[in-house]
């Protein structure tokens, strides 16, 4: 592997995402290990000024075109694949976020190279790369070696500290030509903001969060009562929103909110990576899940491997008893 290490800088709504700096920190280690330069690849329209914060890279490749104003995977993947065909990078790091997910899926296919997805860490080993990836909703992890001259790696947020990838250095910016204007087959009409008026779960000190293990909307009362006893609000993981138990404004995780309450009580949540990234920085995490192997116990401080329908009422009673005392 001799080509550069590429980090796809994620820009959305006028800002570079924090995860970009995490990937730059990881990319720096890989580039040094491989003896290759670290390059950030930034796409946009009149967004060159965003390159200024990418000084952790040896240089920034910037592709400017009106069609690149929004990070649409269909367009971005064609442009990045064309740039890669010319520059022959050895590694392309793409963040696993909702913004970049389509790009991550399309890019390896368009480049005709290998993808290693759900990476939680990547190391240089014996002149090549070895990635650690989580699978099956966080229940297993694998160590993998990608074959071939180039690999695209999908990297989960939290791989390094973002601050390690920030730099005040002014990076060299190289304007990359946009090979061909992508066909306008996919068009962003506009963004819709989440409905206001509901509880803002990012502002709560205590969250009682429910997942599939709650089993039914009828049991939501239990979570509400526990939240009330603790002076907090109810939130949920993806399944709780998919099943219509809670509005989307209460969703914690990749598509929802990043929360950092003092106390996070996870009821019947398995702890898939998409959920964990939204709550892992909570002050105290207590998880109740009847599956003792649930990945939520890898991130929680305290765990209870029992039926939440038995534990929760007992806890509510105990809290009320103490309050009354």
């Amino acid at each position: 592997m001799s080509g550069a290490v590429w980090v796809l800088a994620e820009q959305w709504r006028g800002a570079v995402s924090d995860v970009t700096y995490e990937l730059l920190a990881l990319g720096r280690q890989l580039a040094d290990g491989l003896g290759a330069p670290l390059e950030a690849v930034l796409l946009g329209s009149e967004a060159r000024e965003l390159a200024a914060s990418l000084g952790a890279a040896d240089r920034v490749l910037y592709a400017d075109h009106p069609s690149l104003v929004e990070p649409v995977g269909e367009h971005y993947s064609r442009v990045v694949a064309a740039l890669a065909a010319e520059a022959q990078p050895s590694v392309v790091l793409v963040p696993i976020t909702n913004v970049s997910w389509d790009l991550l899926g399309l890019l390896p296919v368009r480049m005709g190279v290998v993808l290693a997805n759900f990476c939680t860490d990547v190391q240089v080993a014996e002149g090549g790369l070895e990635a650690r990836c989580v699978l099956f909703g966080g229940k297993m992890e694998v160590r993998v070696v990608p074959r071939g001259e180039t690999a695209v790696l999908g990297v989960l947020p939290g791989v390094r500290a973002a601050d390690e990838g920030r730099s005040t250095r002014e990076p060299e910016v190289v304007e990359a030509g946009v090979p061909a204007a992508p066909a306008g087959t996919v068009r962003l009409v506009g963004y819709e903001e989440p409905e206001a008026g509901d509880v803002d779960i990012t502002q709560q000190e205590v969250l009682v969060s429910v997942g599939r293990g709650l089993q039914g909307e009828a049991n939501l009362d239990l979570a509400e009562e526990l939240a009330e006893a603790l002076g907090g609000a109810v939130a949920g993981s993806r399944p709780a929103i998919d099943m219509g138990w809670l509005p989307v404004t209460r969703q914690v995780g990749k598509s929802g909110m990043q929360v950092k309450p003092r106390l996070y009580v996870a009821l019947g949540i398995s702890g898939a990576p998409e959920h964990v990234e939204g709550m892992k920085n909570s002050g105290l995490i207590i998880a109740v899940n009847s599956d003792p192997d649930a990945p939520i116990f890898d991130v929680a401080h305290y765990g209870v491997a029992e039926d939440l329908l038995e534990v929760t009422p007992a806890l509510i009673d105990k809290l009320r008893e103490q309050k009354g005392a």
Partner: protein
Amino acid sequence: MKILVLLKMVPDVVEELEVADDGASLDRGFLRLIINERDEHALEQALILKERHEATVVAVAPEAPEVDDVLYTALARGADRVLKITGVEEGLGSRATAELVAATVPAVPDLLPVDLVLTGCQAIDDLDGLVGPLVAERLGIPYVGIVTGVDVDPGGVARVSREYPGGVRGAFEIDLPAVVGVQGAEKPPRYVPIAKVRAAMTSGQIESVAAAAAAEPSGLDVLEMRRPVVAERAEMITGDVDEIAARICEILAERGLV
């Protein structure tokens, strides 16, 4: 309008997963497979579009244990035609599965062209590829994923709602034909009584189609599979429920949280 729905089976993670003797794959002996949850939403979204626009819905899945149940259930829910790709090696990776589907689908009689391909935008075993993007590229049509609502205009355009972080949605137009990766249907997948599934098993038919090509080997060498190694797992609280509740209250009190 014709809609093709791509389904695949994945391990049920509610069950205990064991590593096989090779130390680098799942022990398939005790594995229970279920439909990829996002694919089930893709099917539901297709059925919603069928009700709205009188579409024909065709579901296709590579063969796997329990897949017949999933396909009969799809028929019972309202799919017009269900296909099973046979001659598929067990335990194929996502990329190989997607290549197989993309290579086989064009050879199925009276299937293509379709107006819309719906599939889940991700699966829990997507280590080396995502089905939707790969099929889109092979069919030469556009892709958009993480979609939670789809409608179709008569002019050959789909309007989809795509999820962004923080609850923000992006409204997209996408020229048809296209592949749309579904995160969630507009409504939860419909319940279908077991009697209806049984009826589909008697009156309905799963069409078997032979896989068009041998699956490509994965581009990844898996050195090891194991349970995640974490720095510090949760301290487990045990006892009867009252003891557990008391201990939690103690912990909360120590931290000034009650």
